């Protein structure tokens, strides 16, 4: 680990200190959920959770587990703060976004507690940049009350097949309709755009389907504009879990495996758009 990212002077006051040899994976994950400026960071013993919300209807949570960090020191049970995510991403990319092999930016992140800025020490090739980002009063994230006991339908797919569908979705459609059913059409994504409608059907015995647990036919519509923001995380992921609960709330979970084999999760909750009469 580069010397410069080791303990710095003034570390004593940190309630949170975390270090990464390579900032790229963190950058990528945060970029995927940066559909709104403000992000709430919550650090617990398990790791770091970054929450971004849109229109009180969509919530994205990125989980970066403690193992991912080379150092993760927490003095309190849990530490929360809010920062401007766009500014944070700009700081992380301060040495450029080069993905050339052998070139990596190391990060050490310190937070001294309520009212203090978030301090980033970034180092690349012996050059250190210190960034201080003012923190904001953390807003209470919405509790979607999505409880695994209320899940009616669940599928786990290899992301590859879902990526293709999402990249081809008709964006002139206001909604994405998701049908999950124990019988035909099993798992269907539908759009209703200017030029007509389109359906993507995944049979339950497809090679792409790792798990198929549907108990009841459910058809729900979700705002395309909201779900569109989840496609960036989908693009990074290798597996995707799609769940709906009895109220029609949607949970999308993406498993992101970084180059060095470490695993992070990005999770989205989305409210259904409206009641749909089943055809």
């Amino acid at each position, binding site marked *: 680990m580069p010397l410069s990212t080791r303990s710095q002077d003034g570390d004593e006051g940190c309630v949170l200190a975390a270090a990464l040899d390579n900032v790229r994976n963190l950058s990528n994950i945060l970029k995927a959920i940066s559909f709104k400026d403000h992000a709430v960071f919550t650090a617990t013993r398990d790791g770091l959770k970054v929450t971004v919300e849109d229109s009180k209807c969509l919530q994205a949570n990125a989980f970066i587990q403690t193992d991912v960090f080379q150092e993760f020191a927490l003095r309190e049970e849990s530490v929360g703060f809010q920062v401007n995510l766009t500014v944070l991403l700009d700081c992380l990319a301060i040495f450029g976004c080069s993905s050339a092999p052998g070139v990596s930016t190391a990060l050490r992140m310190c937070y001294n507690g309520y009212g203090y800025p978030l301090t980033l020490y970034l180092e690349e090739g012996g050059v250190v940049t210190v960034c201080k980002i003012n923190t904001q009063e953390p807003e209470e994230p919405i509790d979607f009350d999505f409880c695994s006991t209320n899940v009616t339908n669940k599928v786990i797919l290899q992301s590859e*097949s879902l990526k*293709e*569908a999402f*990249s*081809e979705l*008709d964006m002139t459609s206001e909604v994405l309709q998701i049908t999950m059913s124990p019988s035909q059409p099993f798992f269907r994504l539908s759009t209703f*755009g*200017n*030029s*007509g*409608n*389109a*359906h*993507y*059907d*995944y*049979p339950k*015995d*497809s*090679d*792409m389907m790792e798990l198929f647990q549907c108990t009841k036919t459910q058809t729900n519509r979700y705002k395309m504009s909201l779900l569109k923001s989840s496609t960036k995380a989908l693009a990074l992921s290798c597996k995707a879990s799609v769940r709906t609960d009895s109220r029609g709330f949607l949970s999308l979970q993406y498993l992101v495996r970084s180059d060095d084999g470490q695993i992070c999760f990005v999770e989205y909750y989305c409210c259904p758009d409206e009641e749909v009469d089943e055809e």
Partner: protein
Amino acid sequence: MDCVATGGNVKVLAKAVHSLSRIGEDLYLEPLDDGLTLRTVNSSRSAFACFLLSPLFFQKFHVSHGRGFRCKMPIKSVQAVFRSLSSLERTVEKCHIELNSEKSRLTFTLHCKHGLLKTHNLSFQDCESLQAVFDKERCANVLQAQPRLLVDTVLHFPPSLEEVKASVTADRLLLKNHVENDADQAKAMRTELCLSSEEFLHFSVSAPTSITFCLKELRVSDGVLVFAESTDLPVSMHFDEPGSPVVLSVTDSVLEANFVLATLSEDSHCNHDNGHKKRPRTPPPADDFMCDDMDSYLIAMETSEMAGPSSRTEPRSSSEREQEEEQRPHSKKFCSFFFGSVLPTSSQTANQTLQNQDVLASDSEDEQ
């Protein structure tokens, strides 16, 4: 209509749609007994393209509708069905096209790997048939080459260049950029390229001539060149004197593609004009191609309720033409066209010239 394309032919179909999308906004689809036609025309009516996919192209081809069914839809929506050409080859096993005229739905069903089924129900509009008037068989000059030759040739011309002049003699093809007037000539960069007849697979020039056409349109027809290259088919170029269209075509046993580009008619060649343009017209100022010369590019397109024997279009009176020209929303610099549509009987093939009845004032888009 109910047809199924499989394997590599799905990609060919997708490529056909993509190359058409480089020309026009709408796709005109017409199932005939001798195949499925896909056609389009550009907004300034100076380029027209048509694919005829024969019944043998499809694993299953069935036309159940009464004769003369045809429709059009935004080409973008069809392109959306075949969005990614590269993944198409990997993933799509079968493409089923079904027309439901009761629901006014054209359904494309792609059967993909891993059992994934993609269904696109597209809405369409009824329309008249779209057909450019051209007759390849009557063209005095026919060149045939591997598409790569033409692709490489076009590459040499700067992207900003608008027109290119092609001159043929008995043993060579000379391409140069078209320079508009003397003042420009001193500054303008000139590009000239000479291809000897040996470079061509077939080189038959019975009437040495010079034609000028929009390079942009030739680039657009890269579609046909790329298409030809990927299917490893030679491209034929049929043309006559200035003013009559140049036709680039690709043919094999199961498909035929024709790209028709208008050419500039030059005053010096007025006396060569064929039956299309017998009517008198006022010559534009000499060498001033900036003027809005309506006659300079011409693709005749016509409407006919009745099918007649193959014959040349009757010339219209100049007042009719002027009327039509006034109705044109915008007149692009020296591009001009006859335009109409054809209602051929199903026995007629795409390329036959038809006897016109009433030439509509504008194209079929207004007819619904």
